[in-house]
């Protein structure tokens, strides 16, 4: 199976390991993630002003590219997923905006493409049972904390899958890989998002609550599918350990990295060495790398 794939800006630069692990893992599962021939940044944030149509031009151009290559678009990053999926709904449901945007970007697009997150493809195209059968490593001794963040689930009316207060897709993914799920209350709390680049003091504490909560639930590591969540949660743990006595740093992996590890793939290109909190010791201790 071949599905058009949108990597996005961060996966092409700072989060190459996320991208590589996605492509290789899906290839191992018989799905080719075929990068769009032309794509641009999605804008990284969905415009919240009613008349801000200009910020929709970028994401819609990507959807137009995707429509030329198939009826589905696979997305790994949950922020891109949020922006592309919501922009697609505008094109599908709001005639007035659709006309203006199409006129501006010289296109004729009406929201035909189905925007899918990689986890949805694993759930609906591969299936959890088939995924479990493809797993080569034994993860039974690994406790994984699922981290959704904000973009993946909200707003629920538009994102439209899973229960936004009690989501299960990451839990089911972790279980299919054979690992244990660490259940903790902060899995869908915001990590601070872009505010981190401008008011780090505030967002570092927001991240701390999430990290400490995952640790308390006995997690060995956290998985997420957003490069900014990954950075915010990963980057400041040394400072947090100095500030909050008793806090032990916890590695933060991308969902696709854990997938590739479970499938027994060569992890050389996964950039595991580029994480701030090195995940390799705990992975080695569990016999996974």
């Amino acid at each position, binding site marked *: 199976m071949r599905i058009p794939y949108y990597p996005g800006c961060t996966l092409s630069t700072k989060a190459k390991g996320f991208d590589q692990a996605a492509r290789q893992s899906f290839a191992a599962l018989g799905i080719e993630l075929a990068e769009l021939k032309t794509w641009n940044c999605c804008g990284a944030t969905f415009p919240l002003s*009613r008349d801000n149509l200009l910020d929709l031009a970028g994401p819609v151009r990507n959807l137009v590219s995707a429509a030329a290559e198939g009826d589905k678009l696979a997305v790994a990053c949950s922020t891109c997923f949020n922006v592309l999926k919501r922009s697609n709904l505008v094109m599908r449901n709001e005639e007035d905006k659709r006309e203006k945007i199409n006129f501006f970007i010289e296109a004729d697009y009406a929201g035909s493409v189905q925007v899918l997150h990689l986890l949805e493809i694993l759930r609906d195209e591969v299936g959890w049972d088939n995924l479990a059968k493809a797993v080569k490593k034994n993860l039974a001794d690994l406790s994984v904390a699922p981290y959704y963040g904000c973009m993946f689930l909200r707003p629920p009316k538009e994102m439209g899958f899973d229960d936004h207060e009690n989501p299960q897709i990451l839990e089911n993914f972790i279980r299919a890989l054979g690992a244990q799920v660490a259940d903790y209350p902060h899995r869908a709390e915001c990590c601070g998002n*872009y505010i981190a680049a401008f008011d780090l003091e505030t967002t570092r504490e927001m991240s701390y609550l999430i990290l400490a909560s995952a640790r308390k639930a006995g997690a060995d590591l956290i998985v997420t599918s957003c490069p900014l969540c990954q950075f915010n949660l990963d980057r400041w743990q040394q400072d947090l350990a100095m500030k909050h006595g008793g806090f032990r740093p916890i590695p933060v992996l991308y969902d696709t990295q854990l997938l590739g590890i479970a499938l027994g793939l060569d992890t050389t290109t996964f950039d595991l060495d580029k994480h701030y909190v090195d995940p390799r010791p705990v992975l080695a201790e569990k016999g996974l790398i």
Partner: protein
Amino acid sequence: MRIQLSATKVHNDFIRKVEDMSGQDLLKCYQCGECSAGCPAAFAMDILPNQVIRLLQLGEHEAVLKSKTIWLCAACQQCYTRCPKGVDLSRIMEAVRDLLMLEHGDRIVIEKLPAETLAEFPQQAFISGFRKYTA
């Protein structure tokens, strides 16, 4: 805080613009406080999320414009998701920020961001941040 109410103040131009840009009806909010209870950044805010709406309902937008709160909202939409009246507070925050910046200029000077920040953060932090902190 003592607040004097008048019809002209409550229905002032700024409030009307906020409602128009955000597409939200401020008077829908009955101040249950669910937004403030769920907001992960509330601990750092000087005005709580529900107070932002209350002040706007009363025409006291100056207090909102001066607050740190509008710059700490990361639009995670926890408040909107849990609001029993369906008020999208992150859209209101965005309208207030945009109106403020259209009149008084951008919140940040991109050239003044520290080199380490630029080198280290993922691209999406800047793309989102520039969209929220500049007009």
